[in-house]
């Protein structure tokens, strides 16, 4: 079509930002992962596969030929994936009724509820996380109340557990699930629900056969929006999880900081990217295939 060529120019500023802030650094990270660590951090320009080797394996300090799996790294990987999956499920489970509640309010009130949902975004993540810490630490609010009422004698250890990380992440990412779910529900034709009841469906059947298929795009978008940032979460596991429940983001940061092993950090970061993209492709494939089967 004529006259459309120049409109392409409109997205060049964004493209330049993307190039400078995403593609460029990504390329640098990829290159670094094949170099040797410098003494004081940074890299020295010698090609080696050592960083990639150390992502997966570990050499014995005294007998360098003795090679074993680097279970510490693999554990962090597995924990990150597992905690992110759980976070996604918790957010979906809590987000669905929340979004449904908002979507079924009168139009004016909906705006107010949506506004309330976004309020946490206004406060710095660090501060919110410290607030959670204040609630769950050993002499924090929850334990103090429980001990005062006599329900428990000694404080329950909640800080520095996977529970603490899950709580923090579910709290932080919940709006990212609620908003796309709400968007899907708002578009939903509510006469479909009535048609379901009219055709003798129970509440559960209406939910399963009518509502869920309609809001599926919302679940897909919400899961992606929660899972991806969750797997790279840094602040929440750092503060609430401590050293024992380290996640990928913390492991990578460690390599670029105290560890002074930039190539290893770069390799870990790239591997995380591969895992995320792989998970995404797998997920969309599975979800997409269901649709095709239905069409059968």
């Amino acid at each position, binding site marked *: 079509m004529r006259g459309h060529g120049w409109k392409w120019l409109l997205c060049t500023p964004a493209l330049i930002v993307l190039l400078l802030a995403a593609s460029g650094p990504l390329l640098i990270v990829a290159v670094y992962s094949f170099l040797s660590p410098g003494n004081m951090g940074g890299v020295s320009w010698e090609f080696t596969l050592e960083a990639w080797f150390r992502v997966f394996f570990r050499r014995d300090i005294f007998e360098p030929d003795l090679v074993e799996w680097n279970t510490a790294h693999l554990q962090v990987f597995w924990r990150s994936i597992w905690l992110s999956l759980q976070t996604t499920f918790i957010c979906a489970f809590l987000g669905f009724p929340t979004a449904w509640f908002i979507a079924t309010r009168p139009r004016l009130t909906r705006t107010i509820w949506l506004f309330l949902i976004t309020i946490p975004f206004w406060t710095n993540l660090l501060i919110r996380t410290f607030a959670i810490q204040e609630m769950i630490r050993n002499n924090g609010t929850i334990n103090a109340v429980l001990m005062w009422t006599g329900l428990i004698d000694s404080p329950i250890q909640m800080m520095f557990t996977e529970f603490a990380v899950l709580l923090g992440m579910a709290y932080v990412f919940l709006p990212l699930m609620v908003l796309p779910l709400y968007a899907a529900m708002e578009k939903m*034709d509510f006469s479909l629900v009535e*048609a379901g*009841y*009219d*055709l003798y*469906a129970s509440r559960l059947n209406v939910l399963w056969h009518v509502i869920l298929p309609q809001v599926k795009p919302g679940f897909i978008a919400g899961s992606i929006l929660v899972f991806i940032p969750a797997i790279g979460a840094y602040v929440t596991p750092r503060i609430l999880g401590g050293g024992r429940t380290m996640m990928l983001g913390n492991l990578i940061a460690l390599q670029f900081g105290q560890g002074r092993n930039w190539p290893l950090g770069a390799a870990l970061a790239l591997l995380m990217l591969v895992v995320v993209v792989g998970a995404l492709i797998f997920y969309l494939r599975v979800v997409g295939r269901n649709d095709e089967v239905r069409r059968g």
Partner: protein
Amino acid sequence: MQKEIEITGLNKSFGQGASAFHALSGIDLSIGSGEFFTLLGPSGCGKTTLLRIIAGFEEPSTGVLKINGKEVTGLGPSKRPINTVFQSYALFPHMSVADNIGFGLKMLGKPKSEIKSTVAEMLQLVRMEAMADRLPSEISGGQQQRVALARALAPRPRVLLLDEPLSALDLKLRKEMQSELKRLQAETGITFVFVTHDQEEALTMSDRIAVMSAGEILQLGPPQEIYNAPVNRFVADFIGDTNFLILRVKEIGNGEAVLELPGGRQASARLPESISPPVGSRVTAVIRPEQAEPTAAGQGEMQAVVEAATFFGTDTHLHLLLDDAQGFVLRRQNRPDQPSPAPGTRLGLSFAPGALRVLED
């Protein structure tokens, strides 16, 4: 006739207190088993609300609703032997045509083999066999309409509710679906409660019509009665075309009024029981455009001048000016040997006894 639906003293208001809106007031209605019953009225008069109350989507504020002799107040839509054809069709977009039609049976827990055979039967009934595996988005509006119909008929409800089911279709398709609906109703014997704002549709399809306005039923009866003997000005105006004449009462008696016509002659007209205008007062009287006939000037009950003639194919509408300057439209069937009179022609008007009726305002 056995009563399928009985509604007594039904009221429905939305909201509370001073801001409450009375959507339905004092509805009394009974619908016979196997009847084709139509709710007719302008947009916003409460037709959908009444249908939703029968279906169970809304509860009446006061009043009693019985279905097949049993009171159903408090029963949800899934507990009533009633199915609805929604105005927007509300087909499940992620299910094939066949799955849509089978949904009700599946929810009723019918065995797979029975669902399969009923779905096949329904597909045949609405002539959609070839489309069984399509998604609703892959068929036309008229076809979606048929699927919605088949889906609602599949569980064999006692009553089928149809909320303006044809309003989204173009004229030709609408005519086709009108006879299709009549055929389906005759074949299945199911009671149809049909909602429309189209008076012609109501007249051609219904066994009985309830004409509604502002939440009330103004008149209830078979189409001929509604057309020939409208109870008030609203019904007469809403159903078909009508000439309204303001005439002076000369005499009253025997349920009839003698009225003075434009030009000085007199004619008697039926009086509704609800009113008794004093002699000398003015009343509204009506004559349908096809119930008057042109005659030679000077003859007939009234005299008029032709102002304009509009050609409609099968007939011509003559726009006339009566002697006292009131307008009058005359509908005359076109015949090749009778050209319509030119504007300015003087002619007389005659009408059969009973064509002129006095109306409540």
